[in-house]
């Protein structure tokens, strides 16, 4: 098989999913709105006190980002499963892992990237100091793709079940914990003015691991789910 047809298949899948997401706008709006609402409710519910919010900001932002991503995970494969597109994808002679990677990338561009873009504003509203802003963006940039990649394995495993929602959270959440711990710790550390290289290296390692292994695991899981 030619290389051109491989990249063509990848980019066609990416473009297809982005077009679908743009035409059903709720897919983009829902996770983003959820993210904004959760973060902006904390000052109202807990206390608007600056020092308190500043210490809680990294945790609040990351927990909200994690939940927002989890909320949108199901859309990676659900509608394709229902209308038979997923079968067609598995019957393509192109490598399934590559097509899956295209779909995951589309999911991240639609649900992860908007979170990164809005995060600085939410950071400011929680009095996150300027020194921590780079850490916030860097951890989100490295961490949210991992959430999409790892989440896709869980969705692929549960897509055939009628009520897979709870199972999906149970499957995926434990795998999200390392990202959550290192990312929120990195932001808090950066706010204290200490170097966060260690945490970023760890997140980058998780990302490298997820981007190489998750598409293959997802492809295998899809085969099992459609059996």
């Amino acid at each position, binding site marked *: *098989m030619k290389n051109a*047809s491989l990249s*063509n*298949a990848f980019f*066609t*899948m990416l473009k*297809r999913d982005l*077009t*679908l997401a743009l*035409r*059903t706008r709720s897919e983009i709006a829902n996770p983003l709105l959820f993210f904004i609402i959760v973060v902006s409710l904390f000052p109202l519910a807990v206390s608007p006190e600056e020092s308190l919010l500043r210490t809680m900001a990294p945790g609040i932002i990351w927990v909200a980002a994690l939940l927002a991503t989890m909320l949108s995970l199901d859309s990676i494969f659900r509608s*394709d499963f*229902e*209308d*038979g*597109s*997923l*079968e*067609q*994808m*598995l*019957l*393509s*002679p*192109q*490598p399934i892992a590559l*097509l899956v990677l295209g779909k995951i990338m589309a999911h991240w561009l639609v649900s992860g990237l908007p979170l990164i873009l809005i995060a600085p504003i939410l950071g400011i509203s929680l009095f996150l100091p300027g020194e921590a802003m780079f850490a916030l963006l860097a951890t989100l940039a490295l961490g949210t793709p991992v959430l999409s990649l790892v989440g896709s394995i869980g969705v692929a495993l549960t897509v055939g079940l009628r009520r897979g929602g709870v199972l999906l959270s149970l499957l995926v959440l434990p795998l999200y914990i390392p990202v959550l711990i290192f990312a929120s710790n990195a932001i808090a550390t950066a706010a204290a003015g200490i170097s966060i290289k260690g945490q970023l290296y760890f997140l980058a390692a998780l990302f490298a691991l997820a981007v190489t292994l998750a598409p293959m695991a997802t492809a295998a899981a899809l085969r099992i789910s*459609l*059996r």
Partner: protein
Amino acid sequence: MASEYSAKQILEVQSLSCTREDRDLFSGLSFTLTPGHALQIEGPNGSGKTTILRLLCGLRLPDEGDILWNGQSIFEDRAEYLSNLAYIGHAHGVKGELTPLENLQVSQAMSAVESPISADEALEKLGLFGFEDAPSRTLSAGQRRRVALARLMLNPVPLWILDEPFTAIDIHGQKQIENMITEHVLRGGMAILTSHHPLDLSDDHLTSLNLAK
């Protein structure tokens, strides 16, 4: 008639068995399909017609038996087999949010063969001229199935596996699709379909498989 596909290709099904929820759907099913032949699978609802097709696509694993394409198990050399296969299932995978043209462009990119005709021409052949750019969800069920069937025109593969291809399609369209299938078989292609619709093929070209016990 000159054959467009390699005459050496052969699909062999060897003593296939399948159970579903402790119920034997079929057991010891064997047949061979060679170029220029169609296999029509008949049987009452729930007799396992769709299950056989999904097995033949490699989407499902058989409980016993094997399926060979050119002597090689389809579960081993998957990519080689899949590049020779087109499957249109009951859920045919036409995205409602995409236009028919976009749907076909996606399936073209997923396929491994060069298209002899453009996506526009394929849609025109299926009587969808003028609907290329309307969102597929605004089309009728029959028209959406035609979009799915247009994939067969676009990607010329030897083996067609079709699950009830005539569902929701009007009488004129049924004739058209019947012609598509017979032409494909007479050109040296292979087709496996589940349908009660009679096909205009002589016994030399058509085998029936009845799943009723």
